[in-house]
């Protein structure tokens, strides 16, 4: 990433979209919309002082909504460019409220609420589409109850939980436990605030709130307005602290997830959604189970699938290594249903096809190996750029020219073409780069010849 940001021959246009493409191979006129960040890219040093002070909290898309960010933010810590961005949908100032704290904090004077989208005209010889993919949203699958059971997560969400730079610092804290902890924090804050007011009353009248309250309930101080306020405050304080104690007791029993289940082919190889195999999910689940075991050696994982597709250099060995060293059990069979048991534990009901038996098993957390879905907006992009898509909405290619789109001079690589893993994406990217270079270095253009 850093190399891309630094390379003198690469003009990095982040937070931008292609608006219009005209022309043909060797001579495309492209209009790029540079979306307003409300932060001057050449001034922002990426120090993050603005984000520290910003009062608006928003779920963090980079952490799949498991963490929080501010309305002014860096997409992720090591992001290139490091320029911060104001989220216009959530920023108070941009929504007509009084704020502007970031502008006051920024020493580089980079905040510019007046910034507008800018348009850039480019003339290029070739175009490479590397638009990527979307993680399939498993909500429409009724039997997995992704929306209902907190401890059923997608593989990319689990990836963020595993990451040392993620919302849990690499601990496999279960989403249901994190929700309880968040509630505790809120209640503690409230209780602390009401305790302060109670302290003032106690000082004023010289007796503890509990003793006073007993007397108050017994009918003393009936016409005393001040004491009425005290009593009201005390009841609301109790309403906060009582559930707080219950939650705190509950939280004492929390530990990281140690019994993991991975469900393969969620949305892929499923005729209700995508009939194709997404290719990388088997290996992805094995990797996540291995890393989870590295973090917490007591972790056991069961991977439920029709088969494990470990096709690639070193992949089969990796799968065996996972089984031998990382407590991974490979279970052949498709999961019929996930239900929620005690302690928010998901229970999986499945058919073990080797034993021909229907079984149920309880886990701490279930990870759904979701399909590689065509990226949202690819239909519009394909129309703008002028290429055809296949029946699933991946960019159309043929097997003998896997990086050539239906339009000469426009190439495709990575998951925009079809589901693939990182090594394949890199290989196809180099291939697409070479095809584009053929156009750039075409004979007949003296300037290019000299460079070549």
């Amino acid at each position, binding site marked *: *990433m850093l190399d*891309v*940001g630094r390379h003198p*021959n*690469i*003009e990095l*246009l*982040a*937070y*931008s*979209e*292609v608006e219009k493409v005209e022309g043909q191979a*060797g*001579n*495309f006129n492209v209009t*790029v919309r540079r979306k307003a960040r409300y932060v001057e890219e050449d001034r922002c040093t990426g120090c993050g002082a603005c984000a520290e002070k910003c009062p608006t909290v928003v779920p963090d898309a980079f952490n799949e909504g498991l963490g929080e960010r501010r309305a002014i*933010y*860096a*997409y*992720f810590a*090591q*992001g*290139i*460019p490091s320029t911060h961005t104001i989220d216009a949908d959530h920023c108070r100032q941009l929504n007509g409220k009084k704020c502007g704290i970031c502008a006051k904090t920024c020493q580089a004077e980079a905040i510019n609420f007046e910034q507008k989208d800018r348009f850039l005209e*480019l003339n290029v010889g*070739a175009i*490479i589409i*590397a638009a*990527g*993919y979307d*993680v399939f949203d498993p909500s429409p699958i009724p039997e997995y109850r992704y929306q209902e059971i907190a401890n059923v997560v997608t593989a*990319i969400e689990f*990836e963020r939980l*595993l990451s040392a730079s993620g919302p849990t610092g690499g601990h496999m804290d279960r989403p249901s436990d994190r929700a309880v902890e968040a509630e505790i924090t809120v209640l503690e804050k409230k209780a602390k605030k009401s305790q302060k007011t109670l302290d003032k009353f106690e000082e004023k009248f010289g007796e503890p709130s509990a003793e006073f309250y007993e007397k108050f309930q017994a009918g003393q101080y009936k016409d005393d307005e001040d004491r009425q306020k005290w009593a009201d405050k005390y009841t609301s304080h109790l309403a906060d602290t009582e559930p707080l104690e219950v939650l705190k007791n509950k939280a004492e029993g929390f530990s990281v997830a140690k019994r993991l289940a991975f469900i393969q082919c969620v949305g892929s190889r499923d005729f209700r959604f995508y009939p194709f195999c997404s290719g990388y999910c088997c*290996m992805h689940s094995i*990797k996540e189970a*291995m*890393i989870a075991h590295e973090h917490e050696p007591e972790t056991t994982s069961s991977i439920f699938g029709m088969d494990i597709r470990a096709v690639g250099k070193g*992949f089969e*060995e*990796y799968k065996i290594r996972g089984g031998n060293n990382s407590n991974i059990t490979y279970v052949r069979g498709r999961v019929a249903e996930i239900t929620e048991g005690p302690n928010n534990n998901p229970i999986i009901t499945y058919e073990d096809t080797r034993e021909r038996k229907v079984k149920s098993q309880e886990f701490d957390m279930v990870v759904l190996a979701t399909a590689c879905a065509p990226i949202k907006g690819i239909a519009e992009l394909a129309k703008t*750029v002028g290429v055809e898509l296949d029946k699933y909405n991946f960019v159309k290619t043929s097997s003998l020219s896997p990086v050539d789109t239906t339009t000469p001079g426009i190439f495709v*690589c*990575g998951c*925009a073409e079809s589901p693939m*893993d*990182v090594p394949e*994406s*890199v290989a196809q*990217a*180099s291939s*697409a*780069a070479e095809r*584009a*270079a053929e156009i*750039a*270095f075409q004979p007949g*253009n003296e*300037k290019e010849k000299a*460079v070549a």
Partner: protein
Amino acid sequence: MSKDVLVIGGGIAGMQSSLDLADMGINVHLVEKLPSIGGKMAQLDKTFPTNDCAI
């Protein structure tokens, strides 16, 4: 005839294409929709089959 190349998408594929072209001496314009490049791979903690760090 233009010698420049436009790359749409700043994930692992877009970054690799851009670097390859740039190393050949070709000017690349890399367009990314999100505020930072990196794509899905930047969200990954480690990559298989070597368990190398993704970033």
